[in-house]
């Protein structure tokens, strides 16, 4: 299935919103491979198309032209039900606003993707995951009883629980203070390394991008620059170039 070494692929993808005069081209031809176990960060100024790219690659949206392949499946050709099942099996999400269900406990929130799929969690893996995110002793707490950082840890565990092909993180630190944000980044990096979890993160925080193996810069719907794993100053410099 992952014969070419990559698990998610975008091939000359465009995305246009609206029609006629008012049409907006959010993506103007993007090609991208994400390899297994790789942590890719996507950066760019507002309106650069970075969120659109992530939505397409996460099968939340369909491209106007070009193809998106996730785990060998062409997303464009799938029905809504099949796309949903594809997300269920292959994709995990970490959102900026956590998006936990307030009436479920931490553990129930974590296993939700499996429950929806009608599967039983692997107990040992789940215990390991709870230890990894440091919530073993808070598993029965509800989101309202947890801090912002703890809530985001629950969300990360929820994204990892089904051992998806790829995890997408949308501004995972955007709603947290810098200290808590740093802890969350550490958790994401270690999960990627130790679990071999493929991840793609959209962020405009240079600090966040430092954990990525590769940083892509988008501007006006195109990939305009690419860095290998870099420290924050270099990333900031690239951002400045891109935004100019």
């Amino acid at each position, binding site marked *: 299935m992952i014969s070419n070494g990559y698990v998610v692929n975008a091939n000359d993808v465009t995305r246009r919103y609206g029609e006629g005069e008012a049409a907006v081209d959010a993506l103007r031809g993007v090609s991208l491979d994400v390899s297994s176990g790789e942590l890719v960060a996507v950066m760019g100024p507002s309106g650069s198309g970075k969120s659109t790219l992530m939505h397409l690659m996460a099968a939340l949206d369909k491209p106007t032209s070009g193809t998106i392949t996730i785990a060998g499946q062409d997303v464009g050709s799938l029905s809504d039900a099949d796309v*949903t099942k594809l997300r269920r099996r292959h*994709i995990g*999400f970490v959102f900026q606003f956590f*998006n936990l269900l307030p*009436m479920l406990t931490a553990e129930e929130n974590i296993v*939700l993707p499996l429950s*929806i799929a009608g599967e039983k969690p692997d107990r040992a893996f789940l215990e390991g995951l709870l230890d990894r995110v440091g919530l073993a002793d808070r598993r029965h707490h509800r989101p309202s009883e947890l801090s912002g950082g703890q809530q985001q840890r629950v969300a990360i565990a*929820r994204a990892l629980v089904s051992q998806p092909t790829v995890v997408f993180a949308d501004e995972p630190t955007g709603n947290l203070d810098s200290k808590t944000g740093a802890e969350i980044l550490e958790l994401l990096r270690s999960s990627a390394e130790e679990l071999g979890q493929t991840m793609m993160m959209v962020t405009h925080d240079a600090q966040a991008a430092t954990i990525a193996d590769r940083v892509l810069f988008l501007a006006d719907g195109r990939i305009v620059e690419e860095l290998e794993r870099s420290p924050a100053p270099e990333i900031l410099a690239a951002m400045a170039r891109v935004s100019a």
Partner: protein
Amino acid sequence: MIKVGLAGLLGRKLRTALTAFAIVLGVAMVSGTLVLTGSIDNAFNFIFTSVRQGSDAVITGKAAVDVTQGQGSFAPTLHDSLLVKVRRLDGVALAEGSVNGTATLIDHKGKAIVFGGAPNLGFSISRGASPFNPLTLISGAWPGQGQIVIDRNTAKRKHFAVGDRIGVQAEGPVQRFRISGIVTFGAASALGGATLAGFDTTTAQRIFDRPNQLDEIAIARKPGFSEDALLSEVRGILPPTAQVRSGTAQAQEDQKQTDSFISFLRDFLLAFGGIALFVGSFVIANSLSITIAQRTRELATVRTLGASRRQVLGSIVVEALVMGVLASVTGLFLGFGLAKLLFKLFDAVGFTLPNSGIVFQTSAVIIALVAGIGVTVIASLRPALRATRVPPIAAVREGATLPPSRFARYRTLGSALLTVLGFAALLWGLFGPHLGTKQVLLFMGLGAVCIFFGVALLSVRVIQPLAGVLGWPARRFGGAAGVLARDNARRNPQRTASTAAALMIGLALVTLVAVLAAGITSSFRGAVEHIWQNADYAITAQNNFSPIPPAAANAVAKSPGVQAVANVRTGNAAAFGKSFFATAVNPAASTMFKLDWQSGSQQTLANLGADGAFVDKDYAKSHHLQLGSPVVLTFSNGDRTTFVIKGIFDPPTGGSPFGRVTISQATWDRHEATPQNLYSFVRMSGGETDQNRAALERVLAQFPNAKVATRQQFIDNQISALNSILNILYVLLALSVIVSVFGIVNTLVLTVFERTREIGMLRAIGMTRRQVRRMIRQESVITALIGGVLGIALGIVLGGLLVARVDFIVFSVPVGSLIVFAFATIVVGILAAIFPARRAARLNVLEALQYE
């Protein structure tokens, strides 16, 4: 600030429409009822004024007792000779006598013609051209000796034409008459389903068994003679058993009975409109509460911009006011259509109402609008007050919630008190000493309203466990969607409780009705099985309750194989200054009925003789009667006779066929010119066999308005009459249930709207549209079931209390009906979820995720 409220109304069209619909239905019921009863009133008014149009004065018999219930007694008749005397009076230009009664027409198949339980009117027409004749001849001629005119409606529907022969049953067996003409009375539907049979005077006197007798004399005065002068002149020659009234006064008198019927019908139907509005008020209050919670930030923003609490309150009340006006106006016009539907509904259950055109009265418009707008505004007050508590700081806080009310901690105590108070009022209404009917109803209504409010508020406490129990199947079979549905139902207990409360009220009333019906049915069955002994068949009217002429039973008595016939004569008499339902029996009753005697014995039934009477236990107690006590009975014709108590019996819970006082048939017939039977019971050699039944039916072929029934059939027939009433009640209560369905739909739509981002997340992490729909549907079913379970439980309690008050009903739980109601509740939940679930499933995942 008012503009903000109105803009909000426009901006939330869907919610406004859904909320308003709860009021639309209630107002439609109120206005529909007023239009319906106004139209019926108008129709009756037309009938009675037309009938008396040409009469300046009308002489009728004066009954010594109240005979208006139609239980088998009639006002005394007038002798032919009175007409001769009247005609000789100075002021009289024209006077005509008439007789009338029930004349059942027989169709080509030999079946009695009855349209929707309406009366079969028979009467004499002395001269077609007379000013007293309200009929219009369409074709043919007015009737001569041995001829008949019938109404156009009957002729058309049953295919009769001038020259045909038609069977008629009046007091005797069926006779056939030649149709001389077809007549109409006003518009086609003016008489409801009543059939008309007109004869010449001598023929009518013969078939109604009134030889040389008249029921009425209509008089037209000479010019120059005043009405008063005419009346006083007539009074001078009247016997004590007759009375005279002016034409208009007689028309009013005629209308009295229908007036009480109409006002009963109006109050009865208005009660259901009121219930629907009451349920609607819950829906409105709940919808407004939810939207206000969702608009916390918006409200806080206008507060930071300088709006006062008062302005916030005003904007929400004005929003409710506008919604109330829109809904009430819509409901008003819908009521117009509903009135037509109600005419059809009553027609369908065998209760055709007269209709000479739909009438829209100003009072109906005003009452419906005031009720609809009033309920909406009152229901908005609590949510509006809540809105005023939104602090300005909420504008800048993520996920700000309303601060709890100062009184929040007294909530449980308060609602418990309200419930207790409600039960106290209800119990006082039911069992309080010396209360009039109005007071009883007032206390019961007040109590019920308090109980419903109290239980609705208290139910917040039981939402958690109840949703847990009722959500079990959802969790068991619905997977993650089921678990989430249950958790969502428990998430905001207040909201779930309010939504379920609306349905609870409807279900409680439906259950109450079912409990009463089950009680009546089982008590009645018990009573019949207890009293009916050694009889094989009963003879009753086709409609199971109308009095029938004794000719049918007399013919049966003569037929081969019949060993004995026991009759129960029915009518009215008076004693101790009060008119009541009285009965009479023949000696054969002693062998066929089994009564429990407190004093006397079965032999009492056979040995009543010329002056014997028996009474029930309660009547004996209230008038201190014992064996040998004298009772002076007054009959409808004015006869007064002293009877001696020969027996006191204890009727079974379900009642007996006997009136307060029962005498012997022979004595009864001496005082009643045209005695009527309520039922007759027949014992035959060989008992219940096909041959015996066929023999009886052969005899009764001459009496098409009578029928034969075995004990089981007799019970079933009587119960089926109850069932039609029950069905009307269910249909009317269904309206309230529909209102509560809109409440559930509305809550779900608002909830889906509120949880947009959450649904987006669920879809993103792999929930299919199907699962989303299932999640919403199961939440809806759980909410509906909470309402259903609470309602059914409350209905059983209320029904039990009512049964405890009414002597002739035993408490009985209608298990079958309750199971049906529970299933209906599930269906309600599923239906209510269709639209919100579809909306939720259709949400665009991306947009939903970015939704704030």
